[in-house]
């Protein structure tokens, strides 16, 4: 999967008018130390957090399904690759130091290959509609474009995984 050639870290910085900070410091400046009251998030930064958490949940679901139902691996490999690319991209445009904590996913994976695949297909369908709504909410056109693109890729995965 080819990631888009995009000014990744600059995207939200330009859109939200905030400065780009290193992710490695987790929000702490070496000169100032941890900030007791982080600045309020711009709507787009909060939106990226929300999307990132959701994509990580989906990735965790795909991983768990592949782990518990190895027969689904062949069908889910592409989905995993695509959702991981979404997570990587979102990680790349995070502009504040605070990392979004990877979710602990406690989902039941249904027994049987078909039901497990259908479960992931349903999750992709839900992600497609959620991303579509989020794209309309986004302030920056560039972020909206990428959210719409993610929505489209989830819709494709839902169709692909629902098939025979």
């Amino acid at each position, binding site marked *: *999967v*080819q*990631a*888009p*050639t*995009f000014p990744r870290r600059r995207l939200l910085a330009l859109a939200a008018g905030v400065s780009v900070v290193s992710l490695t410091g987790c929000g702490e400046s070496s000169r100032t130390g941890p900030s007791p009251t982080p600045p309020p998030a711009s709507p787009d930064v909060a939106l990226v957090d929300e999307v990132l958490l959701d994509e990580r949940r989906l990735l965790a679901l795909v991983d768990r399904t592949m782990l518990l139902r190895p027969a689904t691996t062949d069908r889910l490999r*592409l989905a995993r*690759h*695509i959702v991981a*690319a*979404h997570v990587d*991209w979102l990680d790349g445009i995070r502009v504040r130091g605070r990392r979004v904590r990877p979710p602990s996913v406690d989902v039941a994976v249904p027994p049987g290959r078909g039901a497990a695949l259908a479960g992931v297909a349903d999750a992709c369908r839900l992600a*497609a509609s959620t991303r*579509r709504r989020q*794209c*309309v909410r986004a302030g920056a*056109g*560039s972020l*909206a*474009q*990428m959210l*719409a*693109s*993610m*929505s*489209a*890729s989830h*819709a*494709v*995965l839902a*169709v*692909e995984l629902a098939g025979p």
Partner: protein
Amino acid sequence: VSDVAALQSCLAGEHAAFYAYGVLAAVINDRAHGSRADLRATDDYVAHRRRRDALIDQVTALGATPVAAQPLYELPFPVTTVSSAARLARLVERRLAATYAAAVGDSVAAVRALAAAGLTDAAVAAVSWGATPTAFPGTTGR
């Protein structure tokens, strides 16, 4: 870029897509009448006509004059077989996905939602014609 300009650009894309589907659907119908590809081409032809007409209505409702179709579109390669027709369909849908993605970035609210729906439809259609799913349809390979 205004909502009207974003819609006009999508409309221009749909005019081209409608033309291309007219060509490719005729070739597939001739070479593989009644096949799945034949049905698919007919369905997509109708879907693009419907979307084109909806865009014309939208542009008109915003008080603008809808862009007209070109009298003729140059095909990027000869379309004489089912395989080349499917290749053209993939190309058209990929380009449409890029057009709709750009329109998403250039618009707001209802027009943005419409463009996002167009992007999804184009991405799904491209894969149905044999394209490989990608993580960011519409944003690469424009």
